[in-house]
């Protein structure tokens, strides 16, 4: 079969895009209505994790600042929501802006000094925060708020309102709510990334000096990436509270950091769709590994739990081996078999422009796109 070719941004491309998003929305509603509760927990968790991975993607995938520490903001967001809901009686949705401001501010405070540190040094330094988070959450002075090592529970009543026309269970309504929040955030971020914001961040990632020479303010964009990324990580953590109503010191610990970074790189770093797939990978790969391990005939039931991590580790290695750009790059290749999207660059150089300005544009582009 010959692949259909459409031009990016043309009417045909737009139609296909709208149809695809429409199908996705229909699928979400169908899942909310027809899937059993125990699966809906997974779907709702995917929405929460996807938002957190989107935040990490902004920092790591687009900004090129390799950090593990977003897990701390994930945990912080979860704590803020749990405390506001269970102690102060706030409604769940009202806590999300507070979480965003809180995590964004702390992300700025911690991120500003980190602007000096680069590459793998930043990765190591960020580990300090990953390990510090559970310790801070357990501190005696904070026990009244955090509940110490036992954590904090925050059960949130969440049923579909009367005006909603479809019959969904509480779990279904949770999933729909989180899916809508995630969709709005993804829409905002992907729009921002298609504009000057995304180009500035990617220039920064590919070559800092080149970006600075082209007029990208390094400090401003790095700090902005930290702030927005931290806020999104916090919102992701807060969203997960709706599904899993217990927050503990480990809600922002080492395993969360590992989940986020593997989710990002498995999904596809530096792409918005990759963040969504990463969220799905975080939720389902461990479960899939567990199922595989318990189904293996040569293992007795005692060894199956330990074998889960063997399968998990093997999946990570195999996926990256087969699809180095993450799942999203693989899916793109599959799509290209049926549908090709042509990107048409604005024809700046071909047009007769005055020599002076042409030179300027050309040299800026070369500086911005060359890799060190």
């Amino acid at each position, binding site marked *: 079969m010959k692949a259909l070719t459409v031009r990016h941004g043309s009417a045909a491309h737009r139609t296909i895009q709208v149809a695809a998003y429409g199908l996705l929305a229909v699928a979400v509603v169908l899942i909310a209505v027809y899937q059993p509760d125990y699966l809906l927990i997974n779907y709702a968790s995917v929405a929460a994790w996807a938002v957190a991975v989107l935040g990490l993607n902004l920092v790591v995938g687009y900004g090129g600042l390799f950090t593990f520490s977003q897990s701390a903001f994930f945990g912080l967001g979860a704590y803020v929501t749990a405390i506001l809901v269970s102690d102060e009686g706030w409604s769940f949705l009202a806590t999300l802006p507070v979480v965003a401001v809180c995590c964004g501010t702390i992300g700025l405070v911690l991120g500003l000094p980190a602007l000096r540190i680069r590459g793998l040094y930043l990765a190591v330094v960020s580990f*300090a925060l990953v390990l510090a988070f559970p310790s801070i959450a357990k501190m005696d002075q904070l026990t009244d708020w955090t509940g110490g090592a036992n954590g904090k529970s925050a059960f949130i009543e969440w049923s579909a309102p009367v005006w909603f026309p479809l019959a969904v269970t509480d779990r279904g309504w949770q999933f729909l709510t989180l899916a809508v929040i995630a969709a709005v955030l993804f829409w905002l971020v992907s729009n921002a990334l298609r504009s000057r914001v995304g180009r500035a961040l990617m220039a920064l990632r590919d070559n800092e000096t080149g970006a600075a020479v082209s007029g990208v303010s390094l400090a401003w964009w790095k700090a902005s990436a930290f702030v927005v990324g931290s806020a999104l990580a916090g919102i992701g953590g807060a969203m997960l509270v709706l599904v899993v109503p217990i927050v503990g010191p480990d809600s922002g610990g080492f395993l969360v950091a590992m989940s986020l970074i593997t989710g990002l*790189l498995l999904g596809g770093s530096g792409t918005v769709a990759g963040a969504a797939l990463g969220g799905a990978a975080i939720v389902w790969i461990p479960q899939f590994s567990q199922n595989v391990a318990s189904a293996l005939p040569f293992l007795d039931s005692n060894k199956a739990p*330990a074998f889960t991590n063997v399968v998990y580790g093997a999946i990570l*290695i195999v996926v*990256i081996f087969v699809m180095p750009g993450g799942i999203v790059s693989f899916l793109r290749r599959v799509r290209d078999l049926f549908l090709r999207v042509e990107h048409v660059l604005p024809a700046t150089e071909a047009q007769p422009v005055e020599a002076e300005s042409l030179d300027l544009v050309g040299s800026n582009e070369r500086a911005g796109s060359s890799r060190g």
Partner: protein
Amino acid sequence: MMIEALPGINDTVFHAPYLLGLVVSGLTLGAIYALMAISMVVTYRASSQLNFAQGEMGTLGAFVVFTLCVEHGQPYWLVIPVVMVLSLMFGAGVERGLIRPVERRGAHSVVIITLGLFLLLNAVTGIVWGVDPVTPVTPFPSGITDQWVIMAGPPRFAIRYSAVWIWGTVAVVTVALVLLMQRTRLGLSYRAAATNAESASLVGIPVARMRMLGWGLAAAVGSLTAVLFAVQARSMDFQLMSGVLLFGLAAAALGGFDSIGGAVLGGLITGLVEMLVPALFTFIGAQLSQVMALLVIAVVLLVRPYGLFGSKPVERV
């Protein structure tokens, strides 16, 4: 004394035997971190990558030593070199089989590969050797009372035999590695490949093989680190190296990822900070004491972003 009046300061630290005891344990832990950091540096110089599975590869090596010595009754001094050679081959194989194929294709793919390897090896060790701690083999008595008493006290100050053994081994390995790097043709090739791969390959240095050598050497040093740390901890299980990996990484960052001398100093400083800072300042709660060393290192890196001895990369645009 002024200092005793300060709140939050633990003045018992200023008793000489107590302070010396802390310094000795700090230096012992630090020597182990230094060795881990060295293996990070050797990997990093060879390939500009960090191996997050280094600790688990070491744990695997330590358990192979345990099996060969205890269950098969082989002599310790034969088993250690054999396991180090096996580790060298394993490390080189990991570089050739897993790292090199993915490296060219994705920016952070290697991170995922080593994290996957971390999970996999950790679980495999847990399955093969069980999750219960075992007592590691040592070539000499290394119980808690096997020590030279230097100040009878109380409080008394003593140095355990195992501490001296660890210091000695770390010193020998470091010197041997530096001699290998600086005084042999092989080391010269390794350094040339690390400094400028293209130029090195133009003068006929097998750059790819030098990378395998780097990963292999790092794995051999990593296995030795795990064996030594098991002696220090007097027990080992499949989680043996989780903390050492982290503090070794931090020590390597502190010293600068491309400096062996920096790794040694970084390791010793990390060990000393970990023992002394929480003991001195009582307001640091028990929960935070573990991460104190990491926070101190973070602050140092804010002032010197490429570590104490790391070289700042020069970029061409």
